[in-house]
């Protein structure tokens, strides 16, 4: 392409990063929110009670079982999810019978009041799950098509990461270089720092993202090498499953789950139940799987205890067997999803995810910053391509966070009994995003940046206030109840609002600083047309050298 390999790769990095940069930003940001999807869902269901302190696991299991006996009759398999650090309510779930024409019925979760054992009526919401699922299954597109688009974008991301490393001469020293300059060099340094600081994360998250759909993307290879049965056997080897006793169709009386739990408790020597799975309920083969909090990146058979629900005896399971490659494969998944992460690790995940989003954003801004001096000199104004990138940048980098906030607004403000409410929450988000993408077309870039940054700050600051007006699960109450999940959500909104306010202030300040010298710049430009001005030469030199 260019004279040297590194020059070619610089060119390649620029365009590979630009072409789907906005989609990647969307994937990174919504994916990052996924690390807190349970907490987000909890906030979006304000009908749930506050955190319940000091209720024993046995009591919770009794309450859940009593509810299931009354409400899930004839259901063989059901689950009990105990309150955890991430989701502080007692939940039960089971799969409903399949509707006509569908393979499997819908899995429904009920949230129970841990004191009364009654079901809590919640508003219909997509919650955090819908939000994070968008990062690999685009909302309005068919599943299969969006997997392929996601794969294409991820592939370009992987290319951008690897070419980024290749073109980086001094990856180590640059890590300690930050030139707090305005304009091009400043943005270049920001982009470099954000990329290098979390490089292993960027690589891991992109590569593992591709691995999730390995058998979709590389179907040609598996089709050439295996037949259907072999593929099934291979998938069983890669994703091993625990073998279960089948239903014997012979009714039997089960012991209480809370009594069975004692087996798990003695095995673990600890009282740290995460969830319970029931199989073949009310059958002679009824058995229960007790699972404690995942603590390993890889599979740990000791996290699960299986008990016969009729006799109360321990069922010794053969641990799932992983081959070396499936260990690597599943290890990548585990790193991607971060289920094993405790509170601190989860926040680190969240911040590295944000760093990834910011890396993409800074790269996109860098593209325009680099071309700005030349574009401004254009007699007919900036090119269509340049303006498009600039508008997409404003509409996505600031617009998408506003749109996500609108998703939360929709959750609070749409009528609770509205038909199709879940879809409308998402529609509100995408309509707002569309509007924010269109808005910069009609405004000068500087004004649009400032106005959308201000709007973002307002929107995030006002959200906790709307929460106060519409629910009783607001900051005042959640702090009083020491419900840190709920309080954390509102506090995070305020911090995000603060960040946007600071960005808007900083942006304004930089503009004002430039303003007195604007005439000077015009003068320079005039002279530049006549003869190359000295003061612009080094800048152009920098353009060529640095980007």
């Amino acid at each position: 392409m260019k004279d040297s390999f590194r020059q070619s790769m610089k060119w390649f990095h620029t365009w590979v990063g630009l072409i789907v940069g906005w989609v990647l930003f969307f994937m990174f940001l919504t994916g990052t929110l996924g690390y807190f999807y349970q907490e987000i869902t909890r906030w979006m269901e304000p009908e749930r009670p506050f955190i319940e302190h000091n209720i024993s696991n046995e009591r919770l299991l009794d309450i859940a079982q009593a509810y299931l006996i009354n409400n899930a009759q004839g259901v063989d398999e059901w689950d009990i999810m105990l309150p955890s650090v991430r989701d502080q309510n007692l939940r039960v779930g089971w799969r409903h019978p399949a509707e006509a024409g569908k393979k499997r019925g819908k899995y429904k979760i009920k949230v129970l009041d841990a004191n009364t054992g009654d079901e809590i009526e919640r508003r219909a919401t997509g919650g955090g799950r819908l939000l994070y699922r968008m990062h690999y299954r685009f909302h309005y597109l068919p599943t299969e098509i969006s997997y392929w688009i996601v794969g294409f974008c991820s592939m370009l991301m992987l290319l951008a990461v690897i070419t980024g490393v290749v073109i980086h001469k001094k990856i180590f020293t640059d890590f300690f270089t930050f030139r707090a300059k305005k304009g091009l060099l400043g943005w270049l340094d920001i982009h470099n720092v954000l990329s290098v600081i979390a490089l292993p994360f960027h690589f891991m998250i992109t590569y593992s993202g591709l691995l999730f759909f390995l058998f979709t993307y590389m179907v040609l290879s598996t089709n050439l090498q295996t037949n259907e049965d072999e593929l099934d056997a291979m998938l069983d080897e890669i994703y091993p499953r625990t073998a279960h006793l089948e239903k014997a169709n012979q009714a039997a009386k089960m012991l209480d789950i809370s009594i069975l739990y004692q087996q798990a408790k003695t095995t673990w020597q600890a009282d740290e139940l995460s969830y319970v799975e029931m199989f073949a309920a009310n059958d002679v083969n009824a058995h229960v799987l007790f699972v404690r909090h995942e603590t390993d990146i890889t599979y740990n058979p000791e996290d699960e205890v299986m008990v016969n629900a009729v006799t109360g005896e321990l069922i010794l399971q053969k641990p799932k067997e992983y081959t070396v490659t499936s260990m690597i494969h599943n290890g990548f998944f585990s790193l991607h999803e971060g289920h094993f992460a405790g509170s601190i690790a989860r926040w680190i995940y969240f911040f590295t995810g944000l760093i990834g989003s910011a890396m993409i954003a800074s790269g996109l801004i860098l593209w325009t910053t680099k071309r700005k001096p030349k574009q401004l000199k254009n007699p007919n104004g900036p090119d269509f391509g340049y303006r498009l990138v600039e508008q997409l940048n404003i509409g996505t980098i600031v617009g998408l966070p506003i749109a996500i906030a609108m998703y939360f607004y929709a959750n609070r403000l749409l009528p609770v009994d509205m038909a199709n409410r879940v879809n409308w929450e998402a529609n509100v988000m995408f309509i707002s995003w569309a509007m924010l993408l269109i808005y910069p077309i009609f405004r000068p870039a500087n004004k649009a940046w400032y106005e959308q940054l201000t709007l973002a700050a307002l929107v995030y600051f006002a959200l906790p206030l709307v929460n106060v007006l519409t629910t009783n699960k607001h900051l005042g109450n959640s702090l009083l109840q020491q419900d840190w999940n709920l309080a954390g959500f509102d506090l995070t909104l305020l911090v995000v609002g603060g960040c946007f306010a600071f960005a808007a202030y900083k942006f304004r300040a930089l503009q004002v600083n430039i303003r007195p010298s604007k005439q000077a710049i015009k003068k320079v430009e005039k002279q530049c047309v006549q003869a190359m001005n000295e003061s612009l030469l080094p800048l152009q030199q920098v353009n060529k050298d640095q980007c």
Partner: protein
Amino acid sequence: MSNLIDYINFSSPRWPVFSRVLAATFGGYALAIASSLLISQLLVHVTGKYQAIHIGLILTFLVYVCAAMWVFSVKTAKKAWIGLLKSIFFCLALTWLLAKITGVAN
């Protein structure tokens, strides 16, 4: 208007770039698949069939990335296409040869 003519004009520098994009996207994909066949054929006696296929699959993305980078680093688009086709042919031929020698068909 002149822009449009520029686009259609085959001697414009856009066409080799477009050609490289196609080479990287589809040629790179084909090479990735071909490499997975070769890798699994190489490993099949070491790790067993399923793991061999799996390793080949996991590595496809790296092969794909390297192929795409290579396509955009060589002097001309023509060279990129020829190189890709050669590599694909090499992978497939070697896979076939190995299968013949060891008697394990994929």
